[in-house]
């Protein structure tokens, strides 16, 4: 046996529930009740008073981490490149944002930050400041022992200049504090009936710029090409029905592939389906039940022969 996955939940899953039916402690409760061990947050959504939380809030954060025995995993942040209508930020301003989030993430106990840089085209090519800004904070990341892991997110596939540029960056700098975050939305192989951000104008582009909503269907085998650079995975999904059948993401392919590649990091749930209240809580539990089931099945099939006979 190659070890097992770690199970986490991103509070992104509870979007729209957070602040209407759920506070921070409720979110911790639901994650812990799903038997997950890791909690992922969005700095700008879940840290009250971001970017300068009060000491009372920080005390509360640590008491929740302790009470629910959850490990802070990944901290999502944003580099708002077109910060004003007629002004993009430069490398220094981008590095300052990264510095702020690295320090805050460290303070809260996180191991990873996922910076979301603004993009310059339909293929989600990051704004060119990404490279200089990231390079400037590599020493700080090393000092804090936090890895900076930009996200590979549909419509960007694994085999793409964006990913190549990230890997080149790792090889050029020799850093151990930069990597890839794979969002499992890239494996989506059946269409989404709707998307939360979709406008009527976007819908008309379903055969063009928005066709990725039908799924970009990255072959799971290509995970082999990036797994060495991938310390964290967001388990993006949209709908799992009462028969534990996922309507969009082929977990029956993703899970065995990750197992065979020896992945033992987190699968951190990102529910991104219908935003009716309380639905996400149940959907996250279904996803964990499904992935855990597939993992058990893989383990049984690959157990040592003696164990099989027992």
């Amino acid at each position, binding site marked *: 046996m190659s070890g097992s996955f770690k199970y986490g939940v991103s509070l992104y899953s509870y979007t729209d529930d957070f602040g209407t*039916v*759920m*506070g921070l402690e*409720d979110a911790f*409760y*639901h994650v812990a*009740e*799903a*038997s997950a061990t890791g909690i992922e947050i969005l700095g700008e959504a879940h840290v009250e008073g971001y970017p300068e939380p009060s000491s009372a809030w920080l005390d509360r954060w640590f008491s929740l981490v302790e009470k629910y025995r959850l490990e802070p995993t990944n901290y999502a942040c944003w580099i708002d490149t077109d910060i004003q209508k007629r002004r993009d930020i430069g490398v220094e301003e981008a590095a300052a944002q990264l510095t702020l989030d690295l320090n805050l993430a460290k303070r809260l106990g996180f191991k990873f930050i996922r910076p979301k840089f603004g993009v310059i085209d339909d293929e989600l090519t990051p704004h060119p400041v990404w490279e200089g800004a990231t390079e400037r904070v590599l020493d700080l990341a090393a000092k804090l022992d936090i890895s900076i892991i930009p996200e590979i997110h549909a419509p960007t596939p694994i085999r793409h200049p964006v990913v190549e540029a990230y890997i080149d960056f790792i090889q050029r700098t020799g850093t151990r504090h930069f990597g890839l975050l794979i969002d499992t939305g890239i494996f989506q192989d059946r269409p989404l009936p709707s998307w939360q951000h979709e406008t009527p104008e976007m819908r008309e582009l379903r055969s063009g710029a928005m066709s990725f909503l039908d799924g970009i269907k990255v072959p799971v085998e290509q995970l082999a090409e990036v797994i060495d650079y991938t310390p964290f995975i967001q388990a993006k999904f949209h709908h799992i029905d*009462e*028969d*534990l059948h996922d309507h969009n993401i082929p977990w029956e392919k993703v899970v065995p592939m990750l197992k065979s590649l020896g992945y033992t990091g987190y699968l951190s749930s990102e529910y991104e389906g219908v935003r009716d*209240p*309380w639905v996400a*809580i*149940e959907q996250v*539990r*279904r996803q*964990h*039940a499904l992935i*855990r*089931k597939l993992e058990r099945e893989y383990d049984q099939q690959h157990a040592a022969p003696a164990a099989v006979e027992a």
Partner: protein
Amino acid sequence: MLERNHIQTSGFSNIGPEGNRTGFRVRLRQPNYRGTRVSLLEGIDVTVDGERYPSQENRFLIDGREYGHADLDTLIDVRWPVGTTVDVLIDKPGGLEPGVHLVETVVLYRHPYFPPQFRPVPVPDSRHATIVL
């Protein structure tokens, strides 16, 4: 804040170590508009995937303590407040299979201010809920 259904999916879980489950729990929020003293609670029947687990055979975790069905009538000073949960603890060797289940509950209340012919009144709920592992 609790889930809107009486039956909570968070808290619906097997009891006992993996590989040696002894039963499962169903977590309910107080479905009544006031918190009630437990002696007014005449039981909680549970059905999972069509299999009935009548109140008489269940145990109840209320404010951190476990009680049997026959105890309920004696608990005149124990309360189940609004916005809090009670776990129904059900014996079932092996527990429930991980996955989605159809859970149905009936909470029986003796409301003293209801006409005697409507005591107890059954308060039903049903939903799909998931056993994670």
